[in-house]
Each structure stands twice: as structure tokens, then as C-alpha cells.
């Protein structure tokens, strides 16, 4: 829906610096539209993530770049060249597959050297390059092993080496860390970033893990229902979500719906009912019913009732949780909807420590906190998690 978000940065970039470009690309499977008229420019050397829930079209997009699927409409360019009809084995891209897809009947070294063998690189030369690639991913001394003898993390490194050794124009990564446990995943995230810095190849990374996307990427394209909802730097995606979907999908977000009662000088006031007024910054027409989002960490809770001022909502504490370095409470507003308030435990005595379930509190936030997220949905209000 919000294709207008586009990428501001790419406007000034010449075509030589674009590695992959989608021009109104559409892909259908039967009656299902997996990718719907997507425009995307991937810059040379950048780490771009396609982020979204399963079925959002991110993997289909990746498979179209790899050549396993053909677009039904639009053009797909790699290095400025239209690649429609070009089979995967003639494209200058390589893929790291989700389930690694290592050849079980070959040794690790032969797996990594497989692509070079297809290029008719001499045996000595390709084994040397394969060994170097394995060194790059820090997997040494396993050359003669079969893939089944390696752990998941090690197999992942082999899959990465096998693609990197080809020195492709673009490396495609299809949820490569999805099968690893949390600790190993964190390690591999750092490894991937290091390797990308080292080799300078363009990475297109498909994931449903927002933290992964935000921590590694230069830019993130958030996808939903076959369209790119927002394409921007990780920080901007988090700080300035442009649609309710992005706001909800990236991090936690409290939603408040209401009518715009004031709009002037780049500021607005939204009447959310029950005496709650949200004041924030942004341009919006008076009289519209809008949805406003506020991050949990931008809210604070103070003991006692509300004082009737704007950006202050009287509510009752429902639950309180310690999340290690953070304290979180869930509070119910007078309207019945619930909000999450989160506080970093930096001081010895954080404010939320003194607040307990059942207490009456005032939830407050400053004027910079609310995000305008378009029209309020007509359906029953979605409960915050």
C-alpha cells in the first residue's frame, strides 16, 4: 500500500552503482500475488535486508534475483542488465540457502570448490581458493569431512564459503541463521557483518527476525503482503515507522486511536476519549480519525492519578515484569486498552520499582514520542501484546 515510501537515498545514485533493481516486479502463484509491483534498488556493496513475516514475498523476491522464479510483470536488472529468461547458472549471484543445501556426497573442500569446478578452474587452483574461503569463514581442518559430520553452525559456514568463493556481484542469503540456536545466531550475525566488511560484496539478506535485520543491515526493506512498506536505514525504521504494520512489526508499539482536534504549526492534538489527549509533531488534517503509536520505552509511569493535561493518561497497573536489564509494566487505560511501559534499569532505584499491580498511575510521554500512523482502522481495536 505505501509504495510511496521508496528510497530517498538512491535518487542521486547513478545506475553504475546499482547492483540489483526491481522495476514494478510482480510475481503470482495461481491466485496468490506473492510480490506486487515492487520497486527496489540495491546499491553496490550494501547490506540490505528484506524483512517481514512469512508469506510477505521476501523469499520470492530473493528467488527471482537468483533465477529460480521468473517475474510475471516488470523488469529485474542485475548489474544494469535485464535478466529475464537468464537461468540461475548464468547469473553472477550466489545464494546461501536456509537449510544450507550442502552436497552430502562430497567432502567439505569439494563442496566449496564445486562452483569453481563448473568454471573449469584447475584442481590445484580451486582447492587453494576453497581453502582460503574456508579460512575466511573460520572453518579450518575439516576439509575432508562430509557435511553430515559437521554441526549446524559449521555447515552454515561451509555454505557461506561455497557462495563467497565464487566472488559474485551479489550474495543472496535466505534466512541463513534460522536453524541455529540463539547464541550461535548472535555469533554468526557478527561474523556475517565482519565478512561482508572484509569482502565488500553486496549482501541481500532475507529474514523474519527484526533484531537480526536491524543489527546487521545498512538498509532494511520491511515487506508485507507482497509490497515494501518501508525502505530505510535501521534507525529510521525504528524511530520513524511510516505505517501501522512497520510500527507493529518492528519492536513493540502502543497504539492509541482518536480524532484530530487540533492541527497547526507542524503539531497536532488527538482526542482519544476518556479525557486523554495526545499531542505530537507532524502534519495531519483536522477531523481525521488517526492511529498514533508510542514506543514502550518512550512512556513513563508516575504514581497517582492523572492531572488532566495532554500526554498523560490515568490508568491501572495490570502486571509488572523484570526483563533482566529492563522493567516492564502493562497498564490499562480508562478506555480499556492496554499499554506497555518499559524502563531501563540504569539507576539503582528505577521509578517502576515502586509501582505494583493494582496501583493507579499516570502514563506520560513527551511530544516527540507519538508517531502518526495513518487512519485508525475501523475494525475492533487490536490489543497491544
Amino acid at each position, binding site marked *: 500500500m505505501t509504495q510511496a515510501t521508496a528510497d530517498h537515498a538512491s535518487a542521486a545514485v547513478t545506475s553504475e552503482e546499482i547492483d540489483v533493481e526491481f522495476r514494478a516486479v510482480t510475481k503470482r502463484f495461481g491466485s496468490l500475488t506473492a510480490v506486487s509491483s515492487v520497486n527496489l534498488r540495491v546499491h553496490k556493496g550494501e547490506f540490505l535486508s528484506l524483512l517481514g513475516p512469512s508469506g510477505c514475498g521476501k523469499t520470492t523476491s530473493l528467488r527471482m534475483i537468483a533465477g529460480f522464479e521468473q517475474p510475471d510483470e516488470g523488469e529485474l536488472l542485475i548489474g544494469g542488465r535485464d535478466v529475464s529468461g537468464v537461468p540461475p*547458472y548464468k547469473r553472477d549471484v550466489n545464494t546461501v*540457502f536456509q537449510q544450507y543445501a550442502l552436497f552430502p556426497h562430497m567432502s567439505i573442500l569439494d563442496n566449496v570448490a564445486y562452483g569453481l569446478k563448473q568454471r573449469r578452474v584447475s584442481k590445484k587452483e580451486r582447492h587453494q581458493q576453497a581453502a582460503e574461503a574456508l579460512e575466511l569463514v573460520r572453518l579450518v581442518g575439516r576439509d575432508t569431512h562430509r557435511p*553430515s559430520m559437521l554441526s549446524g553452525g559449521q555447515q552454515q559456514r561451509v555454505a557461506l564459503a*561455497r557462495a563467497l568463493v565464487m566472488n559474485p556481484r551479489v550474495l543472496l542469503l535466505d534466512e541463513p541463521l534460522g536453524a541455529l540456536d540463539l547464541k550461535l545466531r548472535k555469533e554468526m550475525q557478527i561474523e556475517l557483518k565482519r565478512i561482508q566488511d572484509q569482502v565488500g560484496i553486496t549482501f541481500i539478506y532475507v529474514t523474519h527476525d527484526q533484531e537480526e535485520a536491524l543489527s546487521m543491515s545498512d538498509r532494511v526493506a520491511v515487506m508485507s503482503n507482497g509490497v515494501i512498506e518501508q525502505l530505510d536505514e535501521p534507525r529510521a525504521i525504528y524511530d520513524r515507522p511510516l505505517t501501522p504494520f512497520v510500527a507493529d512489526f518492528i519492536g513493540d508499539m502502543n497504539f492509541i486511536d482518536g480524532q484530530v482536534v487540533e492541527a497547526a504549526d507542524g503539531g497536532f492534538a488527538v482526542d482519544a476519549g476518556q479525557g486523554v489527549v495526545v499531542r505530537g509533531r507532524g502534519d495531519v488534517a483536522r477531523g481525521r480519525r488517526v492511529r498514533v503509536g508510542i514506543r514502550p520505552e518512550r512512556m513513563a509511569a508516575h504514581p497517582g492519578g492523572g492531572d488532566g493535561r495532554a500526554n498523560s493518561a490515568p490508568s491501572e497497573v495490570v502486571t509488572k515484569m523484570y526483563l533482566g536489564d529492563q522493567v516492564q509494566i502493562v497498564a490499562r487505560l480508562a478506555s480499556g486498552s492496554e499499554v506497555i511501559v518499559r524502563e531501563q534499569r540504569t539507576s539503582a532505584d528505577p521509578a517502576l520499582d515502586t509501582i505494583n499491580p493494582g496501583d493507579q498511575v499516570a502514563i506520560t510521554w513527551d511530544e516527540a514520542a507519538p508517531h502518526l500512523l495513518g487512519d485508525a482502522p475501523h475494525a475492533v481495536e487490536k490489543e497491544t501484546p
Partner: protein
Amino acid sequence: MRRRRPFTAKRGFTVWALLVYAFLYLPIAVVVIFAFNGPSPSSLAGFHGSNVCSMPPTKLGNVAVWNEFEPCWFSQGLHDSTYIPAIKTSLGIAAEAAVIATVLGLIAALALARMKRRWRIPFDILVYLTLVVPEIVIAVASLVFFVQARQNLGFFPPLGRSTILLGQIVFNASLAMLIIRARFVGMGDRLEEAAYDLGSGPVSTFRQVTLPRLMPAVVAAALLTFTFSFDDFVLPNFTNGTTNTWPIVLWSAVRFGITPAVNALATLMLLITAVFVFLTVIVLRRSRVVDPGDGGGLGSMLGLG
């Protein structure tokens, strides 16, 4: 101290299963045991030669009861002038049928597995038909067809070794196709995709990735079709012309009474078949050890599971 386990449903089923297996395999055990039976005492009393196994079948007396241990029937049977050529014929036909059926089955499996449903289903029905139609029906049909073909097409071979082979290739190719396709489908196409992604074209992908990965199923199919062809009786009995296979010779011998020599031949045949089935299981199991998560046991290979 271990407590005694109560009599559970699981144990009941175990006993039941053992009984079923006993019912199935005891007759075979009897054949094997009676392959070592000697002539009746009265016949033996009237015999003055050095080798009791050289006695004609009609003079052995009652061999349906256990008389004495006598192992010479095996060598006697194998020295018989009618048996050796029949064994050679059977082994030869089985080997050829296995190779041809496996190659055909491989090609069919590759084609059918990725065919559109609309085309695949009619082919599938044909394949299953060759396996479920009673063999005697196929045998009669084959006989009529081969005779007619010979009469109307000059190049078609007369009834004999070639027609036995042709008849057997039909259902063996179906069997091989099912075994190979089960693995092919179970493999998925992610490894082929990986090969394409690394710059390998269709031909080299098949040679370097697909075929090596299919190899256990191909070998299993060859071993199993060999076994099926080797011990097949009904079809060759119709399409053999004057050629004799081992099962046919055995059947002819039975008409003159079930002698220890016949039992010995049957036992040998059982042994050869058992060795091949055993090898098949080994190949399939080994492929599972090397390649966990791909394909199931023999049952799923045959498309039964």
C-alpha cells in the same frame, strides 16, 4: 531387583506377530530341512551303489517323512544336465532384466516426478496396473501378443529367451520406477538448485549431484528387479517357448514327486534370492546412515508408506 512386566497389549501383539511369521516361514523351513533328507530305510536296504543321491526319484521310497541326514542332493542337483543350463538362463535373464528395467525405471522416474499432474496420473495408473493386474492375466496377454507380433512382424523374436525378458521388463521397470522415484521426490530439489546457483548447467548437475544421490535407490532397484525376475515362474511359463528357466525346471521336477533333490534346488534358489534381498536392504540402510532425513525404509521406497 527387576519387577516383572505385566502382560500388556504390546506383548500380546508381539506373540501374534511371531505366530504369523511362523505360519509364513515354517513351510520354507520344512523345504530346507527336507533338502537334507535321505531315502527310506527299505529303499536304502535294496541299494548297493556308492552314492545314494544317484538313486532315481521313483526308487527313494517315502521321503515325506524324515529318514536320515543326507547332504549329497545339492551337488547331485547341480550336476544334472537339465538343471545347469536352466540356472544359467535364469541368472542371465535376471541380470539383463535388472539392468534394462532399472535404466527404464530411472528415466521414467525423472520424467514422471516433475510432470504436471494431468499427465502424471494416467502414467501412474499404467505403472500401478502392471503391478496389480494378476500375473496370469499379463502372462496370457503377453503370450497372445508375442505370438501375433511374431506372425505379423518379421523382426520380432520367436517365443524363447527374448520374450521371457521382454515380458519381465514390463513390471520390473514399474517396480524400479517406484523405488527410484520415491527417493527422487524425497530428495527435493534444493540440492539441484544449489548446483544451478553455483553455475552448474542441467547436464552436469544431473551427473554430479542428482545421479550420485539417486545411486542407492538405483542399486536397490537393480537388486530387487533381479530377484523378482529370477524367481518369476508364471510369466516365463507362458512365454518361454522351448527355453527352460530354473523355476520351470523345478516345477517340472515336482510333477514327478517332491524329492530331496527338488527341495535342494528350491533351497538354492531361496538362498540366491535371500542374498539379493539382503543386499538391497543393506544398500538402502547404508544410504540412510550417510544421508539422514532422506527417504524412509524399504516400505516407503516402494511407495507403501
